[in-house]
C-alpha cells in the first residue's frame, strides 16, 4: 500500500484526472480514482455495454460510436470506431497482451484516422486497478508511445508528446 490509499487523499483525488508526461515525452501516465471496487472498474474498461457509454462521452455533440468490440482475453482484440462531425471517422485497434482480472490490463493500440488499417508501431498501454480505501479503485494508465514520426498515427497516440514544450507554450501563450 502507498500514500494513494490514504483516505483524505483519496477524497481529494476522486473526480480529478491527472495526466503526467515523462521527462523524455515518450510516455504519459493518467491517474484517476473511481468510486467502485477494481472488478467493477475493470469491467467498465472491457465491457462494450459500458464502453459505449463512457468512451465517446468526451467527444463533440453529434459524435457517434459506430464500432465497439472488446474481447478481453490475452491475445484478444478490441476495436472502437467513432464518427465526429466535421472530422470524419477514427478508430482504435488494440490487442490485449495481458489480462489479469481485475488487477491489470495490458494492450498494444493503434489509432487511425479514416478507414485506414493500423500500421507501424503502436502504443503500449498498461492499466492497473488497485483497491483503495472504501471500495474505491485507484486506476493508473501508463501509455508508452513510439517515436511519433508518422503524422497519421500521431493524434491520439502521442497527443501528450507535443507537451514536451508545454511549459514553454504556457509562458508564451500567457504573455
Amino acid at each position: 500500500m502507498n500514500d494513494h490509499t490514504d483516505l483524505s487523499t483519496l477524497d481529494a483525488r476522486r473526480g480529478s484526472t491527472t495526466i503526467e508526461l515523462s521527462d523524455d515525452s515518450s510516455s504519459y501516465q493518467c491517474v484517476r480514482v473511481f468510486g467502485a471496487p477494481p472488478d467493477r472498474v475493470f469491467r467498465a474498461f472491457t465491457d462494450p455495454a459500458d464502453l459505449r457509454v463512457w468512451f465517446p462521452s468526451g467527444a463533440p455533440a453529434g459524435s457517434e460510436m459506430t464500432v465497439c468490440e472488446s474481447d478481453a482475453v490475452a491475445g484478444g482484440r478490441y476495436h472502437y470506431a467513432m464518427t465526429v462531425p466535421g472530422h470524419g471517422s477514427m478508430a482504435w485497434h488494440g490487442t490485449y497482451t495481458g489480462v489479469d482480472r481485475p488487477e491489470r490490463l495490458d494492450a498494444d493500440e493503434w489509432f487511425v484516422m479514416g478507414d485506414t488499417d493500423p500500421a507501424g508501431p503502436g502504443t503500449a498501454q498498461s492499466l492497473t486497478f488497485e483497491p483503495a480505501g472504501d471500495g474505491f479503485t485507484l486506476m493508473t494508465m501508463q501509455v508508452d508511445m513510439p517515436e511519433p514520426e508518422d503524422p497519421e498515427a500521431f493524434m491520439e497516440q502521442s497527443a501528450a508528446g507535443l507537451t514536451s514544450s508545454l511549459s514553454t507554450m504556457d509562458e508564451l501563450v500567457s504573455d
Partner: protein
Amino acid sequence: MPLVASTDLVLDAVSEPNRRRLLELLHHGHESTVSELVEASGLRQPQVSKHLKVLANAALVTARADGRRRHYRLDGTGLRAAHDWFASFEDVWQGRFDVLDEIVSTDHTSLPTQPEEHL
C-alpha cells in the same frame, strides 16, 4: 479530439522530435539564425532548414530578414493552437472518466442499459 485545419499543421509539425528540439532552442535563445541552430542542435544545415520550413508553415516560427541572414523566433500563433488542442485532450479524458465513474459507482452489480442520450 476536435481538430481544426491549422491544428493539423501544428500537430504534424511538433510530432517530430528534432523539430520540438528546435522550438526549445528558439525559446531559450529567443532569436537564432540557421547556423546558430545547426550548432546548438547538432543537426545538419539542410535538415534544420527543412524543419524550419515546416515550423514556419504551421505558424510555430517566424523569420526576420537581416541582409542575407534570416533570424528565426517562436510564433505564438501555432503554439497557442497546440496548447488549446492539448487542453481539449485533457478535457476528453476528464469527461470520459467522469461518466465512467458515474456508471461504476451507481451500478456495482448488473450491466447498465444503454442510455441513448449519452451516445
